[in-house]
């Protein structure tokens, strides 16, 4: 039997894990960047201006698209395979210690909601018409005003909170799962890695949640 890395489930999972970890790094920096919302409109706009006026942004965006697509394609291919590995499901679900965590059982479902959210999110913030503003004599997009306008709607706030909540679950299982997939896991480090993974997920999730809630309540 010939072994082919990308055809194997481990190969696919490792591609997915690397892409997932890079995306996890991206969402953390994205969340931290958004925290400038609490500093002030000018800082927020300046940060976004500096980011998008750097030519390297195209490389970064191409990378993000590649990570997203490879993660999604592998995720879907594996999920279809996994589903067909048990054609008849159990009448009763597992309980107690033999039951897997909620986040680990619904990775593909969280992922699909995240994918839809990402598209809507790009349409709302990246590809929307923006007003202009001037900071330190430089004319730039008033992203801050757009964010404030969008999050006046409770529907947007709730939708956003749900989506990033699912991202928190996705990452709290995803980070330690990816580490295990890549072979970094041992009995001694197990509980530490799992704990850090959950902290990572919820720092990202709660950080993202704080921003629309703040805008909705205080603007």
């Amino acid at each position, binding site marked *: *039997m*010939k*072994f082919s*890395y990308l055809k*194997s*489930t*481990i*190969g*696919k*999972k*490792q591609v997915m894990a690397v892409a997932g970890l890079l995306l996890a790094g991206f969402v953390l920096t994205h969340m931290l960047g958004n925290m400038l919302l609490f500093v002030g409109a000018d800082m927020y706009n300046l940060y976004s201006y500096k980011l998008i006026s750097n030519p390297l942004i195209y490389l970064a965006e191409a990378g993000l698209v590649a990570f997203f697509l490879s993660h999604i394609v592998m995720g879907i291919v*594996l999920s279809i*395979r*996994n589903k*067909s*590995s*048990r*054609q*008849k*499901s*159990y*009448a*009763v*679900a*597992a*309980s*107690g*210690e*033999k*039951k*897997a*965590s909620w986040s*680990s*059982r619904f*990775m593909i479902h969280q992922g699909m909601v995240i994918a839809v959210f990402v598209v809507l999110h790009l349409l709302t913030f990246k590809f929307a018409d923006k007003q202009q503003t001037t900071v330190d004599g430089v004319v730039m997009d008033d992203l801050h005003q757009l964010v404030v306008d969008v999050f006046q709607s409770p529907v947007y706030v709730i939708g956003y909170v749900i989506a990033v909540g699912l991202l928190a679950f996705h990452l709290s*299982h995803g980070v*330690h*799962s990816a580490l*295990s*997939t*890549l*072979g*970094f*896991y*041992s*009995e001694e480090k*197990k509980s530490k890695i799992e704990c850090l993974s959950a902290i990572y997920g919820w720092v990202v999730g709660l950080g993202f949640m704080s921003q629309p809630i703040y805008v909705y309540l205080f603007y």
Partner: protein
Amino acid sequence: MAEKTISLKLKVWRQKDAKSEGGFEDYSLDSVSTDMSFLEMMDVLNDKLILEGKEPVNFDHDCREGICGMCSMVINGNPHGPQTATTTCQLHMRKFKDGDTIYIEPFRATAFPVVKDLVVDRSSFDRIQQAGGYISVNTGAAQDANAIPVPKPDADEAFEAATCIGCGACVASCKNASAMLFVSAKVSQYALLPQGQPERKDRAKKMLAKMEEEGFGACSNTGSCSAACPKEISLSTIARMNREIFK
């Protein structure tokens, strides 16, 4: 101590053969001693069915002491029942309460087709083993064991992996019906010992390819396999397997 007895409602999966649809049948059992093992309870049910002139429930078992890996069954959704580190044969009825309803199903996986009732065909495990779960040994007298030094931590980990009895509870519990815990235990057991080195380069790849060909799913690292494993084999064996394919 006075013997305690309980009454149970059983919903048992009955399936005539691999091709039949199958479904749950209801049975009730009274005065089940809480000192019985789960399989002894099944024996009592079967005695009753035979006396009534009905077909007894088919289920796998052999040693009844938790070492052969033949017993199976998914009991109320849990492979080998609610208790961890236990095979069905070692599960006692004192874990259940009077009046309980117990669902008893076969291990379910595409790669473990039902043969009859609760009996499934786990020969896919044998074929995975044949694909790489072996070492090459010359004929003749075995050399002195102490002539091959093995670091104690490696010996311990290899031993832990080797406690796998191949029952298939890992597959039964996994949402993907993946055999990764089984395969990684077998791979680990050889990867850690000097005797396993000659075939090491290909072993994980061959066994993984066979596992996939048999129709088992991929690993999602949910950890339910390790929780259901009667020998509590660690998820870290799976991480080792993920490294072994680069050897």
